[in-house]
C-alpha cells in the first residue's frame, strides 16, 4: 500500500479552507496509488479540529497536542514522526506561506523529492505533477519516479471535502527536542487598515506594474474619478510605495468582490488572482495576449494602457492628464 499523509492548516483557532481542499486532493491521490489517506493535525485545539476534519474519504487522523499556534520547529519535528507512525509514503501539504515554511525542511529530512505549488496530480506507479512556470504563462508536467515524495498543493484548486467520515482519531506522543525550537512566535499584527476599504467597492479600477512610473498614476486616478470607481492595485505598486497597503488586492492584500474589476497592466499572477477571482465581471487591459489575466477576464482589450485609458477618461467626460 502506498499511503498519503496530508497536513492540516489552522491559524488563530480556525482551520483554513485549504485543509479541506487537501482532503480532496489527498483522497484522489491515495485512491490512484491504492492506499489510505491519513491526516496530521498539529497544535491548537486538535480534538475540535480533528472532529471537523473527519470528512468523507479520510481513513485516519493523527493529532499532536503541542502549543497553540503554528511553529515550524514543532512541525518540522512532528511530521517525520507522524509520517512513520502512519506508514505513509507521500506527504501532501498546502502551498501556503506556512506550508512553504516547513515542507522543504521535512522533505529534506525524510529524503523525499519535493514538488511545490501543484495544480494537478495524477497518481500512479509514476505520479505526474502539473505546475505553472514563468508567471503562469506555461504549464509543466513532472514525472516523479519514486513511490515516496512530497508535494504542496495550490490553495483553491481542489474543492473542499464534505460529508461525514469515520476515521479513527489517534493522539500521538511525539518527541519534541526543545533545543531545536530556535524561534518563537510572539504575536500577530493586522496590516492594511485605513479609511479606504476596497473590499466594499462596487467598481474597482486596478493598476499594475504596466503603469511603469509613479508619475503616471494620475492617469488611473483620473479614470477612477471619471467612473466614480475606487482605485486598487497589484502588489508591486504597493511595494514601491506608490499606493498604501490598503489598496492591494491579492493573497497578502484584500479579497475583493466588486461588480466590475478593471485590471489595467496586471498580469494575473496566482497571488493576485486569489484576491479578485470572485469579481462579478472582470475586464483586462493588457498588451500581452498571453497574460494569465485573460484566462479569467470576461472582456479584454489587448492594447497599450497609455492609449486606452485617456480615451476612456474622455468617454466619461473627464480630461486625460498630460504625462
Amino acid at each position, binding site marked *: 500500500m502506498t499511503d498519503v499523509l496530508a497536513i492540516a492548516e489552522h491559524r488563530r483557532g480556525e482551520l483554513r479552507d485549504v485543509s479541506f481542499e487537501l482532503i480532496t486532493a489527498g483522497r484522489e491521490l491515495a485512491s490512484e496509488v491504492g492506499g489510505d489517506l491519513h491526516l496530521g493535525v498539529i497544535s491548537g485545539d486538535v480534538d475540535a479540529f480533528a472532529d471537523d476534519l473527519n470528512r468523507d474519504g479520510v481513513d485516519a487522523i493523527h493529532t499532536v497536542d503541542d502549543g497553540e499556534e503554528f511553529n515550524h520547529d514543532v512541525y518540522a519535528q512532528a511530521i517525520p514522526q507522524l509520517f512513520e507512525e502512519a506508514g505513509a509514503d507521500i506527504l501532501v501539504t498546502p502551498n501556503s*506561506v506556512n506550508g512553504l515554511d516547513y*515542507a522543504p525542511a521535512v522533505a529534506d*529530512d525524510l529524503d523525499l*523529492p519535493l514538488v511545490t505549488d501543484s495544480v494537478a496530480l495524477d497518481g500512479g506507479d509514476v505520479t505526474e505533477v502539473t505546475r505553472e512556470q514563468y508567471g503562469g504563462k506555461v504549464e509543466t*508536467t513532472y514525472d516523479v519516479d519514486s513511490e515516496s515524495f512530497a508535494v504542496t498543493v495550490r490553495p483553491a484548486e481542489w474543492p473542499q471535502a464534505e460529508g461525514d467520515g469515520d476515521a479513527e482519531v489517534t493522539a500521538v506522543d511525539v518527541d519534541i527536542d526543545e533545543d531545536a525550537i530556535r524561534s518563537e512566535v510572539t504575536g500577530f499584527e493586522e*496590516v492594511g487598515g485605513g479609511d479606504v476599504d476596497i473590499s466594499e467597492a462596487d467598481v474597482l479600477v486596478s493598476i499594475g506594474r504596466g503603469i511603469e512610473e509613479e508619475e503616471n498614476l494620475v492617469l488611473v486616478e483620473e479614470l477612477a474619478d471619471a467612473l466614480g470607481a475606487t482605485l486598487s492595485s497589484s502588489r508591486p505598486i504597493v511595494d514601491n510605495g506608490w499606493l498604501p497597503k490598503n489598496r492591494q488586492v491579492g493573497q497578502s492584500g484584500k479579497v475583493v468582490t466588486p461588480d466590475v474589476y478593471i485590471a489595467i497592466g496586471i498580469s494575473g499572477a496566482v497571488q493576485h488572482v486569489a484576491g479578485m477571482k470572485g469579481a462579478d465581471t472582470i475586464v483586462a487591459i493588457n498588451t500581452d495576449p498571453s497574460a494569465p489575466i*485573460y484566462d479569467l477576464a470576461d472582456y479584454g482589450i489587448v492594447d497599450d494602457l497609455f492609449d486606452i485609458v485617456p480615451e476612456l477618461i474622455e468617454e466619461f467626460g473627464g480630461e486625460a492628464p498630460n504625462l
Partner: protein
Amino acid sequence: MKILVTVKEVAEVEDEFEISGLDIDESYLEYDLNEWDDYAVEEAVQYSEENDDVEVVTVTIGPERSEETIRMALAKGADRAIRVWDDSLEGVDFLSTEATSEMLAAVAEEEDPDIVFSGVQSDDDANGATGVMLANKLDMEWAAVVNTLDLDLDEGVAGVHRELEGGIEELTDVRTPAVLTIQSGINEPRYASLRGIRQAQQKPLDVQSLDDLGLDTGSLDSPLERTSMYEPESEGDATIWEGSPEDTAGELADFLRDKGVVEG
C-alpha cells in the same frame, strides 16, 4: 560578520513566444536579477552600511551569461560574488530544489556566514522552497516570507515579521545563524550608480565547479523529470474588443453604461 545572499538570474518571457522541447525557446527570453533577490541584496547591503565590518557575499548557480546580472548585485554594494557552474550542468532541463540547495549549502559551509538571505521565490520557476531547504541542510534556523527585519547579529537574534495570507503578519524571534527568505517590499532596492558599476568590475567573482565544492554530479540526480511544457488552454472565454483605441475604449464605455455601473 558575514551575510551570504543567494541570488538567481531569472528568465522573463516576451509577450509572444514559442516552446521548443521542454522549455521556452531561448530567443524569447530576457534575463534579469530575480526581483526577490534584489530586495535580499538591498537588505544585506543596508545592514553592512549601518554596522561595522559586515561583509556581503552573493552566491549564484548559473552559466557564464549570469555574470552580468551578478555584477549588478556587486554594483549595488555586495563585496564579492561566487558563481557555481560546471559543464555537467550545461543542458540540464531543470535543477531540482534538492540539487540547488545542495550546491548552495556546499558554498555556505565553505563561507560560514552569520546569516543567509534568499528570496521568497524565483520569478521563473516559483518553487518557493530553496531557502528553507538550504537552512535544513545547514542545520540552521529559518523564517519564510520575511517582510520586516530587525537584525542584531551580535546578539544572535532576528526579529522578523512573516507575511501570512490576508493581511496578517506573524511576529517571530529567530535565533541566528539562520536563513531568511526575503519578501518584496521589505525595503527600497537602490539603482546601481555609475560609480558602483565601475567598482563592481574590480570586485572578486569566483567561479567554483562541483569538484571544487566536493560534490559529484551524482549528488544532483533527482527522481523528478520534466516531461512537458505547454501553453495552458485558456479556461476563460473572454470577449476581446478589437479596433483602434477609440473603438475599443468606446466598447468598454458602452459596456459599463449598459451594466449601469457608471453614469454619463
